[in-house]
Structures are given as C-alpha cells and as structure tokens.
C-alpha cells in the first residue's frame, strides 16, 4: 500500500499533512490508550474527526467501539486526551448536549415504546419541542410503529429507533457504531442518505463498520484501526487504491484452465498462477487487478476458452487489515 496512507510511523507533531487529522477537527484524540485489565483496547492512538462523514474501519476487536465510547465519555482513557469541541466529554457534561452515540449493542430499555424512548432522550436533553420525537422517528421510518415496544423489534428496527433517539437532540456530532447492522437493503440506502444529509448540514458524523463497501458509500474520509492502533487514514479512494495495489488472488473457472493459464502467464499483471483442485479453477495472483480484469476476457476470447466464474478471493476488509499490519 502507499506509505503516505500510513500514519502510525509519522511523528506526532506532523499533524498538518497527516491524513489521520481533519483540517477543522471537532473531535480530537491525542495519544490515547485504553485498557481493560490486561487487555489493551487502544494504544497511543492519535487522530481527529471533522465535519462530514468519517468512516471508522477495522476488524472485530480493533478498538472501534472503545474509541467511540471514549469520544463520548462513556469510557475514561487511561492515557492521553479526548477533546470534543475543545472540551473533555467525560468531565464537562455540557458538551454531551452536542454529542449523540448510537451504540452497536442490541440492548434497549425494556418496557418502553419507541416513542417513549425517544421522548425520554428528548426530556433528558431538555428538548422543548414536543413534536421533535415524532419527527425523529419519522426520519428513520419508525413513526408507524412508534407505539410498539422497542424490545419486541427486530435488530434493524431497534437500531433505527436508537438513531431516532440520537437525532432528537439535534447533535452536532453523531457517533454511530455499526449503524447499518440488521437493516435490510432498502433501509440501508435510506439510512445512508440520512447520514449524508446530516453531514451536508456541517455535522460531524462518525460511522464505524467492518465492511469497507458499506462505509465507502457514505464516507469521504476513513480511519482504519487494527489491534487498537492506527493502521491507515485517508480519503476513500486512497484506501480503495491501497486495496487494489496490494497482491490479490483471483479465482478463474473456465472450460479449459490449462490453455487459459498458458496464455495468461505471459501477462505483466499476472504474478503467478496455480491450479486449485478444490475450487476446480485457476488462482491467479496479481498486483494490478484492474489490468487483469481488462485482459482476462480478451485472452479468453483469443484462446476460445469460456469463462465460467471470476471471483476475487480476498476482496474483503479483513484481507486489507492483514496487509496493513504485515
């Protein structure tokens, strides 16, 4: 991957050109470490978040949730500082009125309807507008079921109710931990549009996920965490390029693998080919997947071989994370 993306090697002082830091930061994380007993959740992490949508990426256990909880003050840091609009969210409760967190946990208060939960949040935050809870519920498509108990909802509906509860306070900083979990494709699209519209109004929206494609659709900027450390940061195109530039494996099933392999081996984009009996096809290693994607149909046509399946074997964020920490 491009070394410019890597920020962990950079000295802390070089904030100006460091992609881990937003130009007009509203949330600043400085040398933060958090541990729970012997388990280190975050280690000397420095980055910042500004207006717009920032994707927080990382495999399970990378420290995304801990970072989000530290940002909102739910978890105190053992070392370093967290500042939200220049204030400590753990100590200064007034800053909490500017923040909203949608946690990943499925747990919701028992016995409350969606409307009661959103209204409770509105009351706690001193929202005077009595119509605000219904508008927040409508914005996530939950108004029609507002009088049903939240603990009877599906995972996606619970998540949307929690998003409504966070929107009702009109926060300037929205922290969303895996907000699309459990949502169906239509809901996902609608929620992504909602987050984009929030970001368009100058809000800081931080969205965590372990699925790159999901975050790519909404976030311009991404922070990648691995093992509690900053692994990469930058624009979504830079992160995607990092994925494209690294060695990848492509499975190709065809009517005549032997002839296809002979024709492909001479291509510059192909680093290696092996037969995979288990998958009944060729596994091609390449550093330039785009060139290979263009060349493969042409070579197949020239050798009169029919392609049955072409599939990237490691086109997942997990493989990128592995690459980043290698």
């Amino acid at each position: 991957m491009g070394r410019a993306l890597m920020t962990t090697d950079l000295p802390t002082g070089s904030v100006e050109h460091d992609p881990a830091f937003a130009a007009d930061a509203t949330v600043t994380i400085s040398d933060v470490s958090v541990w729970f007993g012997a388990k280190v959740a975050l280690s000397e992490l420095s980055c910042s978040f500004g207006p717009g949508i920032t994707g927080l990426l990382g495999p399970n256990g990378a420290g995304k949730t801990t970072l989000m909880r530290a940002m909102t003050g739910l978890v105190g840091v053992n070392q370093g500082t967290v500042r939200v609009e220049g204030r400590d969210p753990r100590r200064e409760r007034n800053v909490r009125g500017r923040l909203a967190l949608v946690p990943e946990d499925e747990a919701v208060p028992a016995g409350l309807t969606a409307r009661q939960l959103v209204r409770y949040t509105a009351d706690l935050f001193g929202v005077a507008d009595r119509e605000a809870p219904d508008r927040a519920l409508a914005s996530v498509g939950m108004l029609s079921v507002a009088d049903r108990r939240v603990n009877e909802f599906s995972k996606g509906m619970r998540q949307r109710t929690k998003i409504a509860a966070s929107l009702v306070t009109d926060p300037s900083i929205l922290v969303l931990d895996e907000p699309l979990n459990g949502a169906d494709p239509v809901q996902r699209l609608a929620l992504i549009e909602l987050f984009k519209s929030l970001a368009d109004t100058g809000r800081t929206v931080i969205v965590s996920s372990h699925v790159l494609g999901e975050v790519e659709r909404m976030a311009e900027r991404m922070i990648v965490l691995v093992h509690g450390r900053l692994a990469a940061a930058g624009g979504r195109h830079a992160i995607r390029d990092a994925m494209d530039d690294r060695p990848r494996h492509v499975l190709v099933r065809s009517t005549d693998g032997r002839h296809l392999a002979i024709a492909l081996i001479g291509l510059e984009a192909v680093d290696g080919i092996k037969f995979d009996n288990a998958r009944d096809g060729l596994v091609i290693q390449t550093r330039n997947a785009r060139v290979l994607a263009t060349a493969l149909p042409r070579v197949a046509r020239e050798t009169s071989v029919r392609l049955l399946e072409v599939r990237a074997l490691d086109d997942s964020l997990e493989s990128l994370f592995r690459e980043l920490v290698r």
Partner: protein
Amino acid sequence: MSTAAPLPAKAGAPSRPRSRFIAIVAYTWRSCFPRKRWAAVLLPCAGAVLFGLLARTVDHFPTRERAFANIAAEGIFSLMMPIAALVIGDSVLGAEVRAGTFHFTWLSPAPRWQIVIGRWLGGATVSITTIAPAAALAAVVAGTATSAGAAFVAAAVGSVSYVALFIAIGCITRRTAVWSLAIVFLVERLLGSALTGIAQLSPTWESRAAFVGYLDDPPSRLIRSGIPEGGGAIVRLLIIAAVALAIATWRMSHMRLSGASD
C-alpha cells in the same frame, strides 16, 4: 422508509421542556421493572406475609405482639426486606449497566445527582408500595394489627435505605447482586451480630431497632445497646441512605460503561 426531515425542526411557539427529574423517575418505573423483576420483588414480599402466618401459629411467646416482633426481626427485617430491596436496587441501576442500556441516561447532560436521586426515588416508591405493605400485612396476619404501623414505617425506611445502598454498589461494581448479598449476609448479619459498630451502619439492624422502638411491649432481646430505637433509628437509616446516595453520585462520574458485551 422515509428520509425526510432528518432533524427536528424548531417549529411553532417554544414550550418548556419537561423536567429531567420527572423523566428519570418515570423511566425508572416504566423500564426498570419488567414482569420478571416484579415477580422477584413480590416473592419475598409474599414470604414476609408467610412469616406473619408463622407468628400466628407459634404459641411459646407470652403475647402475639412479642411473637410477631421476634419473627419479624429475624424473618422480615433480616431476610425478606433486604432480598426484596436488593432486587429493586439492582433493577434501577445495576441491571441497566450490565444490560448496556444505562448510556441512554448517562450520556445526557442531566446532573449526576439528578440521575441518582431520580433512580432512587423510583426504586423507593416501589419498595414503599410493596415491601412496607407486606410487612404491615404480616402483622395483621399474625393477629397483632397494632404492630402494623411500626412494621410499615420500619420496612419503608429500611428498604429505601437499602435501595440507596444497592444503587451505590451498582455504581461501584458490575457484580451488584454478589456484592450486595455479601454485604447483607456476611457483613451485616455475621459481623453486625458481633460488632455494634457495624450494626450501627446496617439497614437491617437499624430497621429492626426502628420497628422495636415503636412497639408497645418490645421483647428485651431485640433491644441492642448502642443502637437507638424508634425515631433515632429512622434518622440513622436516612443518614445511611444520604451517604449511600452521595457515594453513588460521586462514583457515577467514574463509571466505565464499556457495553453489555464486555
């Protein structure tokens, strides 16, 4: 699903926001006591009434009042009341922290004392409407209706003191039930039996003393030196509650809400 109006528009004449405090109390009633929790509260209350029945059947005490006093001191104030109060105290805070839903309240700009007092008040009203009537009913069932008022008052104040104590424990540790049981049965019962200093800080011993102090003919074995009876014990119970709530408020700022899964 609609994505219209993502944010609440400030429309119409602004109205006054609802009281945070009332919202917290109402939330406590609505959300912290699902059916299973109610069953867990009402079961020891039913046990208290059974102790009243037991007091009615024993015949080796000179009066029914004395029989009830002896059995209530051991069965109701030392066993059923702490257990019911533990369920209530854990429900209003510890259970929420463990479930990962307390952040809905904690993340708000509401002052910590409002959260603590609001939760306590919600729990206290539940204990006053369940444990205290059960203790009074036990006296009636035992055939000594004159003791019902003393039992009600002592159980009411004792249980609200316990609820405060269990809220404080919920702010200190996630294992609220384990630590609360250890405090009730090991510290209060075992150490408190031997050491008056411990008993003076114990809701069990103080509520027993409050109950005994309001009886017309209290058994002498229930009167313990160093612990005032009646009103004096009530004052001490209220002080214990106040100190526990102060500790809870202080500790709440230091809680690490790492989520249900952690």
